[in-house]
């Protein structure tokens, strides 16, 4: 008896909460976002600041899932804004508008026991397409010997497609290599394997633990990416279906114009202009 009463009381409370919560939230506009895991840290920082500056006016619901998820969700109208970590592709649905919000560099990394200093774009292309398969001192003074363990990212990752376009002269990384499903797993694999080579966004490689390789004599860091000398600089985009309107337009405008947003972007990423 007592148990039945408790259960019905609990159900009633749950029911009342369920009805009340959406009613309380409806006073603020909600911007829904989904997409790239790479830009998630930046977008959530920007959103938190924006909410602080515009209290009670706007709310965010941000989901990850990958660049392709962001594209498909925004095209189908499931979210207001999609996050994308690569340039627009021909295969993207028509009618999407891409707003660049920040830039980031894609660095080539090796194990810290194998301090490769510099690789030319053609050496990199040969390594990542599987033509060069053994380490030698000619490869930027590599101290590792034997087979090169190339570590790549899974199909659909924005960092993979940007890396192929910007650094590998448009050549594709073949499916021969292990495909890690996140930047964290890729970094862990390179850290634990002395003969490995991989690629990461600059704010991940700058956290240390791996050796960062210069490309064509230019170091992979924020300074050389800002000056435009480093080739592997990709962009984060906010994507909307048609031109952005209402709250989404205000948010995207704030990212590109305000000093507060620029300050957040400059901490680990690179402002677009």
């Amino acid at each position, binding site marked *: 008896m007592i148990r039945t009463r408790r259960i019905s009381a609990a159900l009633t409370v749950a029911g009342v909460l369920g009805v009340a919560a959406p009613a309380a939230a409806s006073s603020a506009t909600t911007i829904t976002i989904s997409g790239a895991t790479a830009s998630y840290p930046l977008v959530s920082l920007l959103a938190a600041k924006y909410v602080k500056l515009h209290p009670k006016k706007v709310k965010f619901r941000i989901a990850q899932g990958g660049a392709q998820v962001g594209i498909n969700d925004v095209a189908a109208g499931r979210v207001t804004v999609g996050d994308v970590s690569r340039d627009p592709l021909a295969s993207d649905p028509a009618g999407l508008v891409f707003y660049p919000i920040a830039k980031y560099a894609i660095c080539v990394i090796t194990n810290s026991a194998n301090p490769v200093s510099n690789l030319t774009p053609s050496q990199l292309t040969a390594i990542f397409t599987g033509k060069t398969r053994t380490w030698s001192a000619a490869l930027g003074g590599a101290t590792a010997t034997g087979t090169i363990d190339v570590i790549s990212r899974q199909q659909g990752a924005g960092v993979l497609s940007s890396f192929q376009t910007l650094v590998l002269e448009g050549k594709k990384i073949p499916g021969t290599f292990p495909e890690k*499903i996140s930047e964290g797993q890729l970094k862990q694999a390179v850290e*634990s394997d002395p003969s490995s080579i991989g690629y990461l966004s600059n704010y991940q490689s700058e956290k240390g633990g791996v050796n960062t390789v210069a490309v064509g004599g230019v170091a992979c860091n924020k300074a050389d990416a800002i000056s435009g000398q480093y080739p592997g600089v990709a962009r984060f985009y906010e994507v909307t279906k048609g031109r952005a309107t209402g709250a989404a337009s205000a948010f995207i405008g704030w990212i590109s114009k305000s000093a507060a947003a620029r300050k957040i972007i400059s901490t680990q990423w690179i402002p677009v202009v």
Partner: protein
Amino acid sequence: MLKHLRDPWPDHRAERTLGAVSLLVGVVVVAMIGFVGVHAWPIFQHNGLSWLGPGGSIEAEIANMGNASVHPAASVYHLNAWPLVYGTLLTTTIAVVLGLGISVLSSIFIVELAPARVRAVAIPVIRLLASVPSVIYGLIGILVLVPFVGNDLITAHQKASVQNVVELTGAGLGVTALILTVMITPIMVALICEALVSVPRSWREGAIALGVNPVRAMLAVTLRAARPAIVAAAVLATARALGEAIMISMVSGSRSFAPKPIDGVTFLFEPLRTLASAIVDYHEGLSAPALGSALYAFAFLLLFSAFALSIAGYLIKLPLRKYQVRG
């Protein structure tokens, strides 16, 4: 309304409520199969059952599917998923065969031979092991086992011998099968122990009284009576091994390669991907229509195998029922 709910329930109402709840479970299962089936349909429609077979490069096919637009051409749906099917069968078979041997032997030890004190500790510890989440095993795998195998077991010569076909980094069949065995063995030990305990002591004592030696009596009477439970344990363990996704995604080398037994020891180091780990690896592309459909097709195949498995388990148990104690 609330007061009405608080009153003691009449029998007919309790019966209907409970009936509705159990019916709901059935409805959910059917709805789930229907949902997965509908989403998987385009793959079956374009490939028939040939998508389970070899040929083509699955990695290139998956890349095509992920890059296709919202309305993909029919050719995009082309799929040859044999490496995934083979990887699933290979890891599951190795883990279940190894695990079954280990768990039967260790159950006999725990129930029949171990001192009472050891038994009192061993059984709860094994229950605890059986409930460890698989991602923990995955972490131990990528942080400890994969670097150890990659740096200390694989020789430079082995790496070089296959370097143009496949890359050996330590993550691969050996580590995957090992961790999978460790994962499923405790479940089997726990179930088999319970069955052995419930075999009436008098049966075995009777056999010993007839002059059979104790080991023989254990194998011929106790173990024989527990056979249905051993089958049930193997079925449960196989289901867990088939569906294991996140651990395998972390330690298998994430590459749709079919390891070749002809390569000798190197076979154990070759990477692979299973149906379940492919769903984890490619879930980002779930909303690309063709790739999404392929992932649902993998899920459908796993669901189908789970059903086939429980039916097979039931059929195997039928003739064993003569002297069963449980199961």
